[in-house]
């Protein structure tokens, strides 16, 4: 993965599973279909003459607006997923994400209060999981989605062990 301007130097980023992109695209597809159905319904009603009173600009504008937004988001997805990275350093975990609004996060192992691993139905189908680190600060917000299940389990064990070894209270 190319190093971005705000990434610490000499960090070997690990990427999340490529399957995560497919998962994101699948959920994006579902979202697109539902949104377009809902926003396109009045247009269909208007065109078929059932609801002629519905203003034309709204009937066309709404679906087009959502279609453009969703298309844009869909185009961004591969890059967004590629921008997610993590690196286990000796004493802290690095997480990065974002293309336009980038964020590089450092969580010292000793500051972790607990580690969550969550698996949703879609994720289970893809064999993925979401890992979340919690420190005493709500701002940490260190979620890492799209890990392969066994990598997630390994990371969880690893992080817990490191956290315990360096436990530092609050």
């Amino acid at each position, binding site marked *: 993965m190319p190093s971005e*301007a*705000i*990434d*610490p*130097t000499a960090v070997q980023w690990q990427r999340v599973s490529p399957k995560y992109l497919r998962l994101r695209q699948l959920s994006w597809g579902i979202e697109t279909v539902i949104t377009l159905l809902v926003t396109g319904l009045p247009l269909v009603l208007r065109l078929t003459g059932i609801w002629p009173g519905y203003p034309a600009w709204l009937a066309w504008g709404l679906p087009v607006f959502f279609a453009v937004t969703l298309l844009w988001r869909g185009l961004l997805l591969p890059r967004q997923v590629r921008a997610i990275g993590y690196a286990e350093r000796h*004493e*802290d975990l690095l997480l990065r994400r974002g293309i*336009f*609004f*980038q*964020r*590089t*996060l*450092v*969580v*010292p192992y*000793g*500051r972790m209060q607990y580690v969550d691993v969550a698996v949703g139905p879609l994720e289970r189908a893809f064999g993925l999981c979401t890992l979340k680190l919690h*420190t*005493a*600060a*709500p*701002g*940490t917000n*260190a979620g890492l989605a799209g890990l392969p299940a066994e990598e997630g389990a390994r990371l969880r064990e690893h992080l817990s062990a490191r956290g315990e070894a*360096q436990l*530092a*209270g*609050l």
Partner: protein
Amino acid sequence: MTAGAAREQGEEPGTGGLDPVEQKEPEWKRVHPVSPLVRGWLALAALAYVAGRNQAESWFAGDGMDLPTGSALFWSVLALGIALLVVAGAFFLSWWFTRYQLSSDSIRVHSGVVVRRQRQARLDRVQAIDIVQPLLARIFGLAELRFEVADAGESAVHLAFLRLPEAHRLRARILEDASGAEAAPDDAARSPGHSGDSGGDAVPGEREVLALSAGRVIASVLLSGTTLLLLLAVAGVAVLTAVTGEAASIAAMVPIIFGFGSAYWGLFSSGFNFRASVSREGIRIRSGLLDTRAQTVPPGRIQALAIRQSPLWRITGWYSISVNVAGYGAGSSSESSARTRLLPAGTPEEVLRMLALVLPDPGTSDPVTTFTAGMSGTGTDAGFTVSPRRALWRSPLAWRRSGFLVTDTALLARRGYFRRSLEVIPHSRTQSLALEQGPLQRWQRLADLVLHSTPGPVSPRVVEMDADTARALLDEQALRARTARRRDLPEQWLRPAGGPQPAPDEPAPAVPSHTVPSHTVSEPAESASAAPVSQEELPHDHR
């Protein structure tokens, strides 16, 4: 039905409470019997109001003023009596089933009538202890004790209400045990000293550091940001009147007036009679006009602090200090903002005096210069690193103030031109940190460094830094956060075995004298190897 369910359950705790035969077990105590009344007076008043109003209305609805007679009177009195009985019963049950026990390492509370709750909190996990006296409780000589741990929700242990001396005694015992002090020879003498003198203000071993006059509080409230808002509102109304040509109706003004009034009143009453003192139990802050509070924050429990100045305060040169304490959380109510205020309004000298308490080791050789530059300075004086010139158009006024300074023990983040603020977060209290960069910032090679602290009014952020500087800072700061924690104060701050004794025992309030010894303490080989601590080594390529 409720009573029946309660009685069934009542047997078990009843017997449990009634055999204090085992002398080893510390005794279970109950809160003061009047407590539910004091806590529930609002509900009672509401009930009385509704009942009374209904009655009165039904009386007056009839022709003239005939009072109910015969059966009508009987039934209404009966209903009232039953209602009172039910309320009294509920009060009694809730009182009876709330018990607490203080052992040498933990405090337990059992409560609840139908749903029983047993709670236990470790004493050395205490983040703060508040003794709060709402007005009514004050009249009865009662006080509420709040024991805060770091879950940032509601208080872990919440004893309402105790007699004030009892609350003081409890607080002293908790802090004594929580500090992990081995029964020092003077301990035996101390505890009774606390209890005996608890009615008064001064507790032995406590030294007052700061007291604000009523005039100061009033003036600070009048010059606060609320006034700016008020001026804006008045201007808005004036413009509206001028445009529409008709005077704004009084009715529309009432909520505005009421809102501002309550905002002013909240600031004033919570800041009134503000006094800060220090003892080996930590910092103690007392304040309040009608409702009073005495907060105790043990050493090392302050996670981050912000020194702020609202625009109008520049006339008088005052600053306020807010702190993050893990137990206090991030509520936005006026009460929680009052709890997290370490100094409502103080001169720079007073700010420095308070800083010396919370930050006994600022990690610079000249804290006065450093913090003064942080509070009111601009540019690179005192060693601050500021935004590069190219940040000018993003924040034309503030860019020379946006900056940071790293000392041996803390990071100072300065920003704001109209609303000056200086955020201080000790390295040992940094939970995690992040670099953030938006698209425009990327184009300009700027970045923000965000430091994550526990929930509270302070969220430190170094803004608009040169990207390379920020990246270097992230690396160094992560390192410092790790290493600093290792030589930090132990959780039981007076435990003889661990680390160096904290300062509060030997009172040395003046900032410079405080810091000279600690500076030498805090540069072991570890830190020298760990991080290039001085800012001189950070890139200054933006100049």
